[in-house]
């Protein structure tokens, strides 16, 4: 519980970039404990005006630098397109302002590494990256089961991110390789890669085949991920498949003792014989009944709890002067994996993660 004197000194947070994610963060700041929007920042003033007319009582800026000078927010949520992340991120850290940066960290590995270096230079500042699946306790629980040996010897997995979104040529930065850094993999599949990283760590080698069904960027891809311990996995990422109006992330793991299935909403474990903790056959856990849950959700059917929890975590981290749960180190590992996957895609061969150079 915060005292009245403490809350008086809370200046609130700026939201920079007012597309869908910026609006979501502005709304979440209205409901997470201690949250408040101190400023709205967007290069297009009209966009900011519209968001303010939604009910966000905060001054508008078209330049983050001016906002930092005039408002001195406690932290900044960067929700701009990823090609603009680095400039905003570095500006905040130079001014000593904590940052929540939407995923992916950047559109290129070079930008991501520069951002990680900037963050390393200010270890006193809380820095979060918006990989919201990392706030879903089902994936954490699944990772715990694998690490704890519930599944016996882990052999392989199948994983997918599926979304019904792209069925024709599309416009906008999301579909520009230059601005987004790629297509469905970097924009949507990076969430799945974070979940896989939580469960298996970084792979040693990747091999990716992809197709731009409708666009210059990849709309669908298949990949093989190989790990140093012998585990391998098949990954499918697509935004061009019907039946997934809301994005789904699913992972099925095969082990010597059974099978584990985990997705946004449900975790199931099937064991071929009873273990110390779980019965033989099926056990299941629903996201909607697994703590932590959000006190408020804008979208219970797609990760509404996780959006709330990641914003709550960042606000709390700023106020307590600690690091948030998901930071630049984890995000940089994802960026390196993305780099290797895009390299494999373009060169048509398996790529070792240790190779690591720019595309």
């Amino acid at each position, binding site marked *: 519980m915060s005292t009245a004197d403490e809350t008086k000194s809370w200046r609130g947070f700026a939201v920079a970039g007012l597309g*869908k994610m910026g609006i979501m963060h502005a709304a979440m700041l209205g409901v997470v404990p201690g949250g408040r929007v101190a400023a709205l920042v967007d290069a297009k003033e009209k966009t900011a005006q519209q968001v303010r007319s939604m009910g966000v009582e905060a001054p508008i800026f078209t330049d983050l630098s001016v906002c930092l000078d005039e408002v001195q927010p406690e932290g900044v949520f960067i929700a701009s397109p990823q090609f603009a992340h680095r400039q905003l991120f570095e500006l905040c850290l130079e001014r000593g302002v904590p940052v929540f940066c939407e995923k992916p960290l950047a559109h290129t590995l070079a930008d991501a590494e520069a951002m990680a270096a900037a963050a390393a230079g200010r270890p006193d500042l809380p820095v979060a990256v918006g990989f919201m699946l990392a706030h879903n306790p089902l994936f954490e629980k699944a990772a715990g089961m694998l690490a704890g040996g519930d599944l016996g010897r882990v052999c392989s997995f199948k994983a997918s991110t599926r979304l019904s979104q792209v069925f024709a040529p599309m416009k906008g930065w999301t579909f520009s390789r230059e601005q987004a850094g790629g297509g469905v993999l970097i924009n949507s599949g990076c969430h799945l890669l974070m979940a896989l990283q939580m469960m298996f760590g970084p792979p040693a080698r990747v091999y990716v085949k992809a197709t731009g069904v409708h666009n210059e960027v990849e709309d669908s891809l298949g990949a093989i991920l190989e790990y140093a311990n012998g585990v391998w996995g098949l990954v499918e990422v697509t935004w061009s498949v019907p*039946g997934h*109006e*809301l994005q789904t992330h699913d992972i099925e793991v095969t082990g010597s003792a059974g099978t584990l299935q985990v997705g946004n909403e449900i975790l199931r474990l099937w064991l071929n014989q009873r273990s110390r903790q779980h019965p033989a056959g099926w056990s299941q856990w629903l996201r909607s*009944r697994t703590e932590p849950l959000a006190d408020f959700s804008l979208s*219970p*059917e797609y990760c509404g709890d996780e959006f709330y929890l990641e914003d709550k975590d960042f606000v709390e981290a700023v106020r307590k002067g600690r690091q948030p749960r998901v930071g630049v180190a984890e995000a940089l590992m994802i960026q390196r994996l993305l780099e290797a996957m895009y390299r494999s895609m373009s060169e048509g061969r398996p790529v070792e993660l240790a190779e690591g150079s720019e595309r």
Partner: protein
Amino acid sequence: MTLSARLGGPAGDILGLQLPLGGGAAVADQLEPLRRLQTRFQSADALRETLERRRADGYQALLALGEARLFEAMGRKARPELPMLLPLVPSLRGFMREAVEHGMVGAGMRRVWRSGVLSLVGLGVRGLGQLGPLRRSDFPTFLRMFIDLELAAFARYDPPVVFLHPQMTDLAIALNNPRIIEAFHQAVADRTGAQAGLATENFGAATSALASWGIETAAMIAPWEAAGSHMRPSVDACVRAARACPFPIWADRLGRMEPPDEEDRELMKKAGVVGATRDDYAIWADA
């Protein structure tokens, strides 16, 4: 006749079509039966036949987004052999997809302009008078125009209640902006003879917000199930709040493909929740 008696079918329930027409989220092992249902309902005739059967079973009302297939199935006007339509507006599905390409403002403008000059003229002088604020990007005005456009398609079915989409209700609550709700009420009053209801995923916060804003609603749809999933802030708090509500409440099943069980019904009864919205597989399985 009370609203709950007028709308409620067997067990007080109303029908829902979100999952069968391809919206909402279903977990992986529900996809196959759902896909069969969605394929079947590609045909407006099949949808109409099923709606007629449900009406004959006693279901009186159907909560629905504005979908071309639904309007085709319903015909040109309301008919007694079909359930009454309860519009859920605005339909955010296509809008959010366009927002990926064009941004939120761009997608909104495209939607308004794509509806065509004739549609805008059809909104009347009041609608055209809104174009000034629209250009100035006033969101409640923008929302009202969206809803106006959607209600124009629903109006011929004389809906008794129009519900505001939960994402919009909850955005208004999160941003503490009663103007969003007021804009919705105004659009419903101007465009139809219907009452205005709210759908929400945050029941406790919604009832508190309405009380603090001094805004009344005719009905509400919110998550209810015995396990307490999505019942925020808690089952007990939701039950207490529901019992104090002067308006009927229907239980939102949030993508559940099975019907409410005895425990669910028991909790609904305890809270005075009049019935459930049913878009589960069981209610449509004979399609």
